[in-house]
């Protein structure tokens, strides 16, 4: 894959050198981040619309916080502190599956249970990160929390590509079953959907995507980018294809603009923050459209 990345990078840098593309394209790390955005946008758009429909917004926040613990564990066991993927994926999957398992075995409301796990993951993650902070520099912690395009390398791009392939191969064939199982489990059962299995699979997919996006968006804000594009798309959609298409476009647009704008205008903000601010502006814009354009006023019933 490295040859492909180099090929794309060389071409874009040549275009930037001849002033066809803006100046930030001259930098390798910007192109790396933009290549990631092209994968992250569709992933978060499709998955985020499902997260919104399933009312699992804070689930991904919990997983993002759990990733902090994963990073800390990675540092403690001697993994590379810039890419502790083994610990992050391992711990986050364990965390997410435990949450789902508990959800099926308690009478607590969903938001209550997720709130409990969210608090636990934040407390443990923050404590452990502070404990290991002496071993790593503060930029690494900042990158984990808020994202950093400077840190994106070929390993991160390969991980993201791998997660994209897994999500496409598993998520697309099971998409209808996953959605139906949350709309009406009885109907899903009647249609032969293994409701419990697809729910666990969905949790796994959200976890994989959350962890793979951490380098760009950061643990604190990854949930926002799952949710805001889908919510913005909801404002201007009456149909499922409309919802998903708009969510993909808005997520991709937010990532690309959130990466390029601070570079172009020399604004010293972390990537995750910039991406989420762009997404929030789009959300505000679609809210205004929805409030003023007659055809969208009834978009929510």
């Amino acid at each position, binding site marked *: 894959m490295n040859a492909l990345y180099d090929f794309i990078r060389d071409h874009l840098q040549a275009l930037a050198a001849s002033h066809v593309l803006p100046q930030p394209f001259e930098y390798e790390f910007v192109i790396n981040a933009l290549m990631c955005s092209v994968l992250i946008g569709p992933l978060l758009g499709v998955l985020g619309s499902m997260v919104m*429909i399933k009312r699992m917004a804070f689930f991904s926040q919990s997983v993002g916080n759990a990733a902090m613990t994963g990073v800390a564990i990675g540092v403690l066991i001697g993994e590379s502190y810039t890419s502790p993927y083994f610990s992050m994926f391992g711990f986050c999957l364990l965390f997410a599956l435990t949450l789902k398992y508990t959800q099926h075995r308690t009478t607590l409301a969903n938001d209550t249970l997720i709130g409990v796990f969210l608090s636990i993951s934040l407390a443990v993650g923050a404590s452990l990160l502070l404990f290991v902070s002496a071993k790593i520099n503060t930029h690494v912690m900042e990158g984990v929390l808020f994202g950093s395009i400077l840190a994106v390398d070929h390993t991160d791009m390969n991980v993201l590509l791998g997660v994209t392939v897994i999500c496409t191969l598993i998520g697309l*064939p099971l998409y209808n079953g996953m959605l139906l199982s949350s709309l009406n489990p009885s109907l899903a059962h009647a249609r032969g959907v293994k409701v419990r299995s697809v729910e666990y699979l969905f949790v796994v997919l959200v976890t994989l995507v959350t962890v793979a996006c951490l380098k760009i968006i950061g643990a604190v804000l990854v949930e926002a980018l799952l949710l805001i594009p889908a919510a913005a798309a909801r404002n201007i959609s009456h149909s499922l294809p409309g919802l998903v298409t708009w969510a993909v476009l808005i997520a991709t647009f937010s990532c690309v603009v959130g990466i390029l704008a601070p570079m172009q205008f020399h604004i010293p903000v972390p990537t995750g923050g910039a991406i989420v601010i762009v997404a929030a502006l789009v959300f505000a814009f679609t809210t205004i459209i929805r409030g003023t354009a007659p055809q969208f006023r009834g978009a929510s019933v």
Partner: protein
Amino acid sequence: MRGPAIVFDNVCLRLGGTQVLDQVNLRIEAGALHCLVGPNGGGKTSLVRALLGQMPHSGTIRFEGEFTTPLGYVPQLPDFDRNVPMTVNDLMALLGQRRPAFLGASRAARAANDQALERTGMAGMGKKPFGSLSGGQRQRVLLAQAISPMPWLLILDEPTAGIDEAGVRLVEALVTELNTRGVTILWINHDLEQVKRIAQSVTVINQRVLFHGPAEQIDSRLEVIR
């Protein structure tokens, strides 16, 4: 195209600390139009969910015979989230095809879905948001999805609750027609007049089976329902 008979053998189900079903023994004949009646909380919906494989239970539920087509299920209307941005066509695509519904309905599914919508009096409503339809219209859409493709067993959970007289007649006529074509109907129903009008057999259930027999005998057994 008759499917198998459905046999519930000593089915027990507990939810939390409550006994919902207690030693339910019941046989629904192939091709029957069978109604389940009983008080709220009597276990009718739980029995159906156990049949769908959604609720763990003791005892056995078995099919005596073979079937090649799927079963159709019409859930209670309040169980369906109206806030999901989804047109009628999206919902039909979600239920009737393997291709992800956000990519739109496949050509094959679209033809079958249009036909099913037409049969339930919903022709031309495919592009309407599902959540913006009236209760009766949504119920007809849910009925349409259940008969596309044609099932061997159609399970209806109070499909005529809250819909107008014309809608009730349409559902009754459609269900009766499906039944004459060999589809077994299992209908959870609170309307005893309707039960007498359309059903061939009926089971009164309140945790246990209180009555099981021909629908015309229901009048003489009203005391078990009350």
